[in-house]
């Protein structure tokens, strides 16, 4: 898999970033779930940080269209690349990189923090969406099944839930309680908050870590999940909320107003 990806990146290097590049994600109003919304926002932020224009396309079948089965993915030229990691590699092959200036130690540190976000925040999101009976029956399953006709809506949502629960069991999360999940989120927020300190970005200038952290924290802050108090936990770390506000103003609000 890796060799295929690196080969694809090498082939991609010959061409510049295409003007008609598109980012495919799920419709935000009635279908997308917290974990996918966070991943999509992270990729969108990353591309904005690289100053690469993309057209965002909302497709209810985006998950099936993605080569890895996960959203988001980009369609650039003849290439289809999904998820943040491979997209970062692909973009680097096109000559755009945010982490080029970091030294080896910083790069390793950045990777470690990205792993932390994926292993704790993303896993916590998936736990809440699919392992919590209340949330999964009230929110996740109906939203996930919404684009499909009866009885596919139920079948596909149940199938998805089984798959995620199996994955949660493998990483030892399936049996966690709500308090333990709150604890996990709190611990990773503390780690991120300590690393960030009073800086604007984790490593001086924006990197893919900033995009990933922003994607998850912003999505968690703006989503109200019955029975959970994740936004309150994050708000205990004012530097993290400021970090989100800063990126939001700098890359989203400003670029929007400049277009208008």
């Amino acid at each position, binding site marked *: 898999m890796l060799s*295929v990806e690196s080969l*694809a990146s090498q082939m991609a290097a010959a061409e510049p970033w295409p003007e008609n590049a598109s980012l495919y994600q799920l419709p935000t109003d009635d279908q997308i779930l917290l974990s996918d919304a966070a991943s999509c926002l992270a990729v969108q932020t990353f591309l904005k940080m690289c100053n690469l224009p993309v057209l965002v396309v909302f*497709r*209810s*079948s985006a998950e*099936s*269209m993605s*080569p890895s089965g996960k959203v988001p993915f980009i*369609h650039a030229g*003849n290439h*289809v690349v999904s998820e943040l990691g491979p997209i970062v590699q692909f973009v680097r092959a096109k000559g755009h990189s945010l982490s080029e200036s970091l030294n080896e130690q910083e790069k390793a540190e950045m990777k470690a923090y990205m792993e932390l976000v994926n292993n704790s925040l993303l896993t916590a999101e998936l736990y809440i969406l699919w392992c919590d009976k209340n949330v999964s029956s009230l929110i996740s399953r109906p939203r996930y099944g919404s684009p*499909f*006709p*009866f009885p*596919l809506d139920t*079948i*596909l949502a149940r199938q998805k839930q089984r798959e995620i629960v199996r994955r949660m069991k493998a990483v030892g999360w399936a049996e966690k309680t709500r308090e333990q999940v709150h604890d996990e989120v709190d611990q990773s927020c503390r780690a991120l908050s300590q690393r960030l300190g009073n800086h604007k970005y984790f490593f001086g200038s924006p990197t893919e870590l900033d995009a990933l952290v922003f994607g998850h924290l912003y999505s968690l802050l703006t989503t109200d999940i019955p029975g959970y108090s994740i936004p309150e936990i994050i708000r205990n770390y004012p530097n993290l909320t400021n970090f989100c506000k800063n990126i939001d103003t700098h890359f989203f609000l400003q670029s929007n107003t400049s277009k208008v």
Partner: protein
Amino acid sequence: MSALTGSYNTMVGNNEGSMAIGGKLSNMLGRAERLVAQFSYGTKETSYGLSFFKPQTGCFERNITFGLFDVKGQFPWSSVREVDRGVSFDFNFPVWRTRHTVRWEAVWRELSCLSRTASFPVREESGHSLKSSLAHTMVVDCRDSTILPSKGVYLKVNQELAGYTGGDIRFLKEEMELQLNRSLPWGCVLSSSLWGGLLMPFGERPSCIADRFFLGGPTTIRGFNMYSIGPYAESDFLGGDAYWAAGLHLYTPLPFGPGRPGFGDIFRTHLFINAGNLCSLDYGEGLRGHVSRLGSCLRWAYGAGVVLRLGNIARLELNYCFPTGVQLGDRICDGVQFGAGIRFL
């Protein structure tokens, strides 16, 4: 005949092999009911199915069949992998000299790309859909043999309406097959066929690649590769919403010895010319536009070959083809082409 029979066989088809295991419960409830279960495992296709057949007492031709199936298939000409799971209900009945079938089916279809390099229009077709449709087929068969007839007419008209009994796929599909055979002196037979089809999707969504028509190959338009005619993207064929195909054959028993039982009975040589076209329709053009589009960019080929009849259900063909009317993007088979199948143009 024992009530329970089992079967095992292996099949080799177009670049694929498969193995099938089946079980059959004949006369299950004492009124010629039949329960058939089969499982087939192949290099490209895996399927299993269960069907229950019940004829009306005293009229075997009037019967009902209920089926459950799960079919996984790969279509390399369009880089598509398709998984179909569904139920079907068929009602067969004769009316005068025609046979009719009314079929309801509900199929959960899952489409995905065969490889990472599949073209983007094929990738856009990926996903789940539910097709629920009502179909009616009428067949008139006055031929003296199904595989190598010497006289008679065959007509099949099929129409399918999807979307009114549930599901998210909505279309009306019309298809027609006509074959005329005429005996000539010295045991020669002149056979002509005409096929046509039209798919009209309803609503905003364009037609799905799984519903569209595909044309080309040794059993349809000879001289072209399997389903390699018409709209395409990169190296994937996308199928079309309308098609027509016509073929003219001159079969002769020469040089295999006409009239002699055995060898001459199952072999024929033939000269053929076949033509056709497949295109997508955009529905703003009106009838005249569609007809002119189907008439332009014609595909045609001629050639000669040997036909072998396998029992009364299938036939093999070995032809030498000259694809003459070729359009940009078509994949041709210039020279020797081998075909096996049960339905031939």
